[in-house]
């Protein structure tokens, strides 16, 4: 872990309508890092995401982004600061064209460079260029996932949170998706990867946190976690 945290979460408690899901979560990510948050369904990964991004009101704890306390800010203000989430289930705008989806990615941030960034993301995801005028709802699942990531990039994120980008994709597409994420990180983007796909995520990430029942159970360098006997038993069946 480097000295300067881009995102710093301390004792985060959160849940839905008074029912707690997260019981005090701590984690950090430094600028330029790619960090994975792993865990099975229901471990609280998405709850963590959505509270960090301001979609829900957290019960307690602190969230600091680039040195600033962002707990309690609206999702709109959090996006404006450069913390951008690509949600589970893509959440693209089905009735809007691919181009309009991309343009709305820079609704709150990065608007000045919209045209330039649009060209850039189309260079990264050429398939989106071919579908420019098509309604997003008519794209395949893999294409929608690409669009969701591209839409996130349009906001010029300082930290991109990817929630289950491999969900519902064929093994071949998962491979392609992880390759793309590696490339984005290679270009200097800080990425928080939230995944159930433990093996491939550990190959990609520098560090990882493993969540269970709303707590961080394990954390450390990805290489060390790959060899961890508890993790291997729980997630890899070895």
């Amino acid at each position, binding site marked *: 872990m480097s000295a300067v945290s881009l995102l710093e979460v301390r004792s985060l408690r959160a849940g839905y309508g008074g029912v707690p899901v997260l019981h005090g979560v701590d984690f950090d990510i430094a600028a330029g890092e790619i960090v994975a948050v792993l865990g099975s369904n229901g471990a609280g990964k998405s709850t963590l995401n959505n509270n960090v*991004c301001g*979609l829900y009101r957290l019960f307690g704890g602190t969230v600091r982004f680039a040195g600033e306390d962002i707990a309690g800010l*609206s*999702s*709109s203000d*959090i*996006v*404006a600061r450069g913390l*951008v*989430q*690509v*949600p589970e289930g*893509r*959440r*693209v*705008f*089905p*009735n*809007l064209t691919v181009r*309009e989806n991309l*343009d*709305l*990615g820079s*609704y*709150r*941030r990065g*608007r000045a460079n919209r045209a330039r960034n649009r060209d850039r993301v189309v260079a990264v995801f050429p398939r989106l260029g071919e579908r420019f005028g098509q309604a997003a*709802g008519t794209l395949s699942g893999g294409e929608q996932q690409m669009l969701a990531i591209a*839409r996130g990039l349009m*906001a010029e994120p300082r930290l991109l949170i990817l929630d289950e980008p491999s969900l519902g994709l064929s093994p071949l597409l998962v491979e392609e998706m992880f390759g793309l994420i590696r490339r984005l990180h290679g270009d200097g983007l800080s990425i928080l990867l939230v995944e159930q796909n433990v093996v491939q995520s550990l190959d990609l990430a520098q560090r990882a946190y493993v969540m269970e029942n709303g707590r961080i159970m394990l954390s450390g360098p990805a290489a060390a976690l790959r060899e961890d006997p508890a993790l291997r038993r729980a997630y890899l069946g070895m």
Partner: protein
Amino acid sequence: MLDPVILLPAAINGLTMGAVYALVALGLTLIYGVLHIINFAHGSLLMVGLYGAFFLYQAGGIDPYLSLVLLVPALFGLGYILQWGVIGRASHGSDQNVLLVTLGVSIVIENLALYFFTGDTRTIEAPYAFEMVDIAVARVPLPRLVAFGAALAIAALLWLLMAKTDLGRAIRAVAKERQGARLVGIDVDHIFAMSFGIGTACVGAAAALLLPMFYVSPHVGHVFVLVAFTVVVLGGMGSFIGALLGGLIIGVTESLGGLIFGETFGQLAIFLIFIAILLFRPTGFFGGRPS
């Protein structure tokens, strides 16, 4: 009776009224399409606009067409505040609540109007009210022609707003995918209020265009809101092009219906269409609403 010399003028007159119906219906369909609110207060807000135009003319000597410039922003503001301060807060995310809240709002507005303005039917006498313009075989009153042109121009502006601006894209995005909208930084509550405001601004414009050729009374909204609902159902809930074409069709139907069934029964034809649509094509011409 079915001689084109009679039919054509009736059809042209119907088109002019239809454009105003379309304007009212555009507001209604925008509010429905984004917020999924059946806005029962729409007619009352039109009535508020008509009184606004009426008093601006009576007290301020401001021509109704000029007052459009004031009424559109005023009703936009009223709609924004209504959604942001009352309807949104009272809904708690449930569509049935909203239905009752908008109905309640309309009852309150109408009774306030009855209290302050009495039930009298009022009209203004604009100097150009009875000027006629010859179009082919038809003689069309000037106010109707102005209303027709202005309503189409406003519809075109609205279309541009929805298709070409970030606000329009955000409105359409929120209509289908609220969570996704929040995650790109769209303030969803603000967009709801903007949609309601724009929808209400439409009746502000309609009011200014209507006043030179119509009357004002606390219940005048009913005349239009029933027709507007028919237009929206005909065109398809939430469809812009549907509201526009539906308005024109309904206007012509009413006019020709009046010719055939007699003036007082002109609206009979509208509701026959309404029932037929509900029976045979309940999603309307441009509806479908693929979700």
